[in-house]
């Protein structure tokens, strides 16, 4: 047997990128994609590559474009919602095209294990008119990432590798291939292609449109798209990568119907057409949104043939697939031998660690806020969001990274006072600064809490780019009056004193920033 390495799906992507000869990897932490950059970092010296956390996903994506512009290969990785933040460079990179291979690995989170939604990135690949590869196991994660770089350079397009939580955070033995040398430095000869003035952009967009038929042909011939027309033709199965595994689990003796499994996009329309012609009825099983199903149904459906899937309730519209859910779509019951034997089974949600600085910050905040009319505390994403749960019940919103400050702006405009919002140090660096700049420019009466625990705790203690004195200086630099920038030490013994300072700033009819500063207790270990 060939030598195998035991790798998470994320690590398989990372190692493949290193073996594909990347010169740089760019990311911002986000479950379930975080371990991709962490793995590249752990071997950065050995492979002589740069691997650093960017302030947010947009910066990360743009770093990758810059490296590609210089002829070198680059990997950028992020969680699904990170791609919303990076959507601008992402879509435009399809239009500029690439020089060095540019691969985006995006990790979707069906079931929302650690996310605020379960959006399906395949739509974004189609939106940007770029190819997407979808692995179904860790070996494919490795192989497809290697392939993605070649594909990117061959068609001069960025390529998306779409993975999901189950693959990202599952380990298996992976057989690797010989590494490839890094590309030489070679600045693009087509700079105009990167200057998206309308006159250039129209040319580039035409080029992108013209590439589509070649990409379709590539996908049609790809071994990742599989068609099998054997078996009982009363029913046909259409599924994407991870769903294919669960369908196979449903039929341990082999899939008894014709099927098409899709793992390479643009969607292989010809294969799907052939399947539909062959069978009487179609069941579509997808990990993610009903992407293939919507395409298949179109506006008028398939004449004379029933299509079942997420849109007619054959499968649940939301949530993550499991073998049992896939089996049920074919009327197969995977029975449980046991139900819980305990009468009432309480949940065990995640919670702030004992001794967490955020707990002390919110205690002081709630104590001070008690003296004012009840107003919402706009908040953000990070460990501190867990203060939503009892006993804190502290936060009233969590929408997207950076939304706290910007939503507070809207509330101030609406006439609320005092307006409060809270945001972590890393989230502030990610996309809180622009909100604060807006508030400072408008001199809005708001109180902003920046919870400085010196790390990106929620995603596993990565480096935060803005903490301590640098954070204070940045806040002042954005236009907040220095006497209304207050740094607190969130400790139980300082509760009264901290509440007093917070009360002062809440009463102030201008913009103030309060920075409770104490290290995450996990980071000290």
């Amino acid at each position, binding site marked *: 047997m060939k030598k195998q390495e035991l790798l998470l799906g994320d690590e398989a992507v990372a190692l493949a990128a290193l073996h594909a000869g990347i010169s740089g990897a760019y990311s911002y932490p986000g479950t379930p994609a975080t371990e991709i950059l962490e793995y590249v970092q752990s071997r950065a010296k050995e492979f002589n590559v740069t691997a650093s956390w960017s302030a947010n996903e947009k910066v990360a994506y743009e770093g990758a474009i810059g490296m590609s512009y210089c002829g070198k290969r680059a990997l950028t990785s992020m969680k699904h919602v990170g791609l919303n933040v990076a959507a601008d460079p992402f879509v435009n990179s399809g239009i500029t095209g690439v020089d060095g291979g540019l691969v985006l690995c995006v990790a979707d989170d069906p079931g929302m294990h650690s996310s605020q939604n379960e959006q399906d990135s395949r739509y974004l690949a189609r939106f940007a008119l770029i190819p997407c590869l979808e692995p179904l196991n860790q070996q494919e994660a490795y192989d497809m990432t290697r392939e993605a770089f070649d594909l990117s350079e061959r068609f001069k397009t960025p390529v998306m590798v779409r993975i999901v939580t189950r693959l990202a955070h599952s380990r298996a033995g992976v057989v690797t291939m010989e590494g490839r040398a890094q590309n030489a430095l070679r600045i693009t000869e087509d700079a105009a292609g990167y200057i998206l003035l309308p006159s250039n952009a129209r040319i580039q967009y035409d080029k992108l449109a013209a590439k589509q038929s070649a990409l379709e042909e590539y996908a049609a011939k790809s071994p990742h798209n599989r068609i099998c027309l054997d078996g009982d033709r009363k029913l046909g199965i259409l599924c994407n990568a991870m769903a294919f595994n669960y369908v196979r689990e449903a039929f341990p003796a082999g899939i008894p119907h014709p099927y098409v499994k899709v793992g390479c996009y643009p969607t292989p329309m010809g294969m799907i057409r052939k399947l539909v012609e062959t069978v009487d009825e179609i069941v579509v099983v997808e990990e993610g949104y009903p992407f293939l199903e919507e395409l298949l149904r179109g506006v008028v459906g398939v004449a004379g043939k029933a299509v079942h899937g997420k849109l007619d309730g054959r499968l649940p519209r939301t949530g993550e697939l499991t073998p049992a859910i896939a089996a049920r779509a074919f009327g197969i019951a995977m029975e449980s031998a046991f139900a819980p034997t305990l009468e009432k089974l*309480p949940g065990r949600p995640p*919670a702030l660690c004992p001794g967490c600085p955020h707990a002390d910050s919110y205690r002081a905040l709630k104590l001070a806020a008690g003296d004012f009319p009840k107003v919402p505390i706009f908040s953000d994403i990070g460990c501190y969001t867990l203060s939503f749960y009892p006993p804190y019940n502290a936060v009233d919103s969590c929408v997207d990274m950076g939304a706290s400050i910007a939503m507070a702006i809207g509330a101030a405009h609406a006439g609320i006072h005092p307006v409060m919002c809270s945001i972590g140090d890393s989230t502030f660096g990610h996309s809180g600064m622009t909100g604060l700049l807006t508030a400072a420019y408008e001199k809005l009466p708001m109180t902003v809490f920046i919870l400085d625990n010196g790390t990106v705790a929620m995603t596993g203690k990565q480096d935060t780019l803005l903490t301590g004195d640098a954070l204070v200086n940045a806040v002042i630099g954005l236009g907040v009056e220095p006497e209304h920038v207050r740094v607190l030490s969130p400790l139980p013994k300082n509760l009264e004193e901290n509440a007093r300072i917070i009360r002062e700033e809440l009463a102030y009819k201008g913009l103030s920033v309060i920075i409770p500063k104490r290290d995450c207790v996990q980071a000290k270990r």
Partner: protein
Amino acid sequence: MKYDIILAGVGGQGILTIAYMLDNAALARGYRIRQAEVHGMAQRGGAVYSHLRFSDREIVSDLIPRGQADMILSVEPLEVQRYLPLLHRDGVVVSSVHPFKNIPDYPDEKAILDALLELPRALLVDAKAIATANKMPRAENMAMLGAALPFLPFELADFDPFIKAQFERKGEHAVLANQAVLAQGFRMGMAVKERLDAGMPADAAYRETHTSL
């Protein structure tokens, strides 16, 4: 030969360390493996689990299908309950009796143990006592790994290289102590299993084996 195992516990109890040990031991013995785990949010004191599958044949999905797990191996007695629908009718539960209480509505301890005793095959050990007896109170996970070994195709020595890799940076003492906890967990697991196999009820088997701890 296939083994489908659910590992269970609470964030911080070292569930993923058990997974690391088993993954590597299985790989070293030439098995194919698939092991899905939870990272991120749940690790902050929430319920943590892993689906660990190893087999000499192809493993298709990362998740163990419902009703097919051969074992639930849990470092915490309440956590077993969450995964019972995944257990095969001939499957075994190997659980610690020591509770981890970080929620306000933690049920009555006796009710939890009674619920475990209702299962046809439950092997109970006190992982906390074993870990503490070896002056490694946090090594409950290693005690449970040991207790599960009588059901698995490994020997104690299989884990030596991985215990070394995992604990070396904490010093030679940590390596030896973890090996000792693993070994005592194994002896305890064997002792309980022999009694269960001889037809003794699970609570009696537990009591008879835990007198000296």
